[in-house]
């Protein structure tokens, strides 16, 4: 099998997997199975990043999204401990479903018209793509060109941490 065929095969597997798990995420009744499908979705996206030679982003995707954020989501689902009757209460209203379907249809039409009519013509990954995705090159520009946003993000994370603790704290009426 040639190199290109392997690329096509990998892209097809990850793309179909990503779309399928995304659809399962928004259609499952039980929030826990939604969350598990979302974890699978993040792994599929990580695979797609690898097909683009973005190793660092692929690793961070698994660590941050599939690891940290989804653990938080599952933790909150467990903490809320919704009863059976509350899970059963999730019934789709007609208006909502029709709106959703209409939006999906319009978007898919827009897409088809955009990309089928005018392809971008970018069919070849440049040799540079292999160099820029590595941890070395990302770290290099993170600590030189993007140093200020990097430090600003640490402040944002601290603010979010304190904010989350303050909001979720149990208020004592004393």
């Amino acid at each position, binding site marked *: 099998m040639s190199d*290109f065929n392997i*690329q*096509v095969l990998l*892209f097809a597997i990850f*793309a179909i997997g990503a*779309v399928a798990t*995304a659809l399962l*995420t*928004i259609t499952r009744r039980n*929030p826990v199975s*939604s969350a598990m499908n979302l974890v699978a*979705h*993040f792994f599929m*996206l990580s695979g*797609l*990043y690898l097909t*683009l030679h973005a190793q660092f*982003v692929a690793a*961070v*995707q698994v660590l941050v*999204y599939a690891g*940290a*954020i989804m653990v938080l*989501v599952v933790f*909150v*689902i467990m903490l*809320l401990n919704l009863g059976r009757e509350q899970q059963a*209460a*999730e019934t789709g209203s007609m208006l909502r*479903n029709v*709106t*959703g*379907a209409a*939006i*999906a249809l319009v*978007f898919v039409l827009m897409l088809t018209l955009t*990309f089928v009519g005018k*392809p*971008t013509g*970018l069919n*070849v*990954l*440049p040799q*540079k*793509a292999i160099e*820029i*995705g590595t941890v070395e090159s*990302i770290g290099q520009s*993170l600590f030189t060109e*993007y140093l200020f*946003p990097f430090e600003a*993000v640490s402040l*944002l*994370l601290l603010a*979010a941490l304190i*904010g*989350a603790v303050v*909001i*979720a704290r*149990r208020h004592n009426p004393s």
Partner: protein
Amino acid sequence: MPTSIPLDYYLILSAVLFVTGVVGVITRRNAIIIFMSIELMLNAVNLSMVSFSAFSGDIAGQMFVFFIMAVAAAEAAVGLAIVLALFRKRQTIYVDEINVMKW
């Protein structure tokens, strides 16, 4: 020159995933599933950022993805804290039962 999957395919995939997220936000009532749909949309945008970055040989797109992930983590922490506080007060996480700020 190595051949590869065209950029268009990545962009179409990213748009399809984004639409899936939008439909999830509109059709679901459970606040946590709405939150997960928002994550789907963020990731769809990340995918198009990474593909543009790789195809143009410019690192800026991947740096953006890094920062988007940090912001998404902060959003997750605060968003879930809000859901938790809401559940404690109202005993529900269904968004159409929470209507104090609606008129």
